[in-house]
């Protein structure tokens, strides 16, 4: 865990972006976009289970699973014509992998603004990622509500 309480994977992603020049940060975001995993079959066959993130400019759908060990699994899909949105989703999928419910809920809501991308892609676009994180947390709260 980093000094400010960010889980290691997310802290590493943030550090990776900050090490780069603004222009190269876009390339890293593109790499994330290309790494967004395909949805598992249970969701490709049931798109109704996915929640659309209305705040994103391009259609992006997310779904959160919480397993018996309280580990969060985030799934997301966005079209290839929306690489920025795919990149945002991919950062969260990779950064949240293996985290517990509590760890995800403790991620600062404004984490996306700290990635060093506001200058490269604009603050307005980064809002889409903030919304994605917010919706993921809300789904977790709903699924774990007693």
């Amino acid at each position: 865990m980093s000094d400010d309480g960010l889980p290691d994977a997310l802290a590493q992603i943030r550090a990776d972006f900050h090490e780069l020049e603004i222009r190269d940060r876009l390339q890293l975001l593109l790499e994330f976009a290309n790494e967004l995993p395909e949805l598992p079959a249970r969701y490709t066959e049931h798109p109704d289970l996915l929640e659309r993130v209305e705040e994103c400019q391009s259609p992006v759908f997310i779904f959160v699973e919480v397993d018996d060990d309280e580990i969060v699994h985030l799934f997301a899909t966005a079209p290839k014509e929306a690489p920025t949105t795919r990149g945002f989703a991919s950062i969260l999928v990779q950064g949240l992998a293996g985290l517990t419910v509590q760890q995800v809920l403790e991620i600062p809501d404004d984490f996306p603004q700290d990635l060093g991308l506001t200058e490269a892609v604009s603050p307005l676009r980064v809002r889409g990622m903030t919304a994605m994180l917010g919706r993921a947390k809300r789904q977790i709260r709903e699924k774990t509500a007693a």
Partner: protein
Amino acid sequence: MTVATDPDARFAEYAHPERLVSTDWLAANLGTPGLVVVESDEDVLLYETGHIEGAVKIDWHTDLNDPVERDYVDGEGFARLLGSKGITRDTTVVIYGDKNNWWAAYALWVFTLFGHEDVRLLDGGRAKWEAEGRPYTTDKESAPTVDYPVVERDDAPIRAYKDDVLAHLGNPLIDVRSPEEYTGERTTAPAYPEEGALRAGHIPSAQNVPWAKAVAEDFGFKSLAELNVIYRDGAGLKDGDSVIAYCRIGERSSHTWFALTHLLGFEGVRNYDGSWTEWGSAVRVPIVKGREPGEVGAR
């Protein structure tokens, strides 16, 4: 004009056919001296996933907007930007992009604020280029740095501010947003982020003509006859009208500004780029809700 215009017969009927080029024309003219192809997209990363060979990228957020004030870059900023993209004042610029050239038209409108003479749209944009199976490259952007003069923006002819719109009331207004935004059900385009307008509805008397109505099934612009049905018969525009188009931040209405100005030949069309994010938050400006345009002076 540095580079000859596209003689495509489909464009001949438009008021300013020299403002469009076809995908065939562009494919045949790539690499022509004096021509620079510019990609301008909603998605800031789309260019990097693949673009037309030799094209440079200009992003509406990070390149054309002033980073501090809600305004465009100034003459020096524009000169620096274009010079870095290999564009001189005499260059023929062809702009294309995603979403039916939505953002490409916006970039073209900004180029026009600076009086860049020869700037054209690729009819159909990325979608048509792709549908025809034409190639993209992921080569990194490469352009010689050249000198572009510092030209001060001349906003008045094609850019309307809020006070201009208030003074304009009684003349035609075209609201190019979605019906949901026009009626006041919502302040943002369906599936688009909230951009902070406090009130919903439309400017009194504005006709609702969603911008994409100007786009045909092949992603290019509709024919002159079809456009006349939409804008003259439908929205009631007449020759000699002074028209202001608006949307939410002035980008979709740039597309309509292009259609009205360069295809239908209306003169003095202005784009209100403050649009709904300004009007819907301004104090004591008139707003109408519902499907009817409403009347000026009535609430």
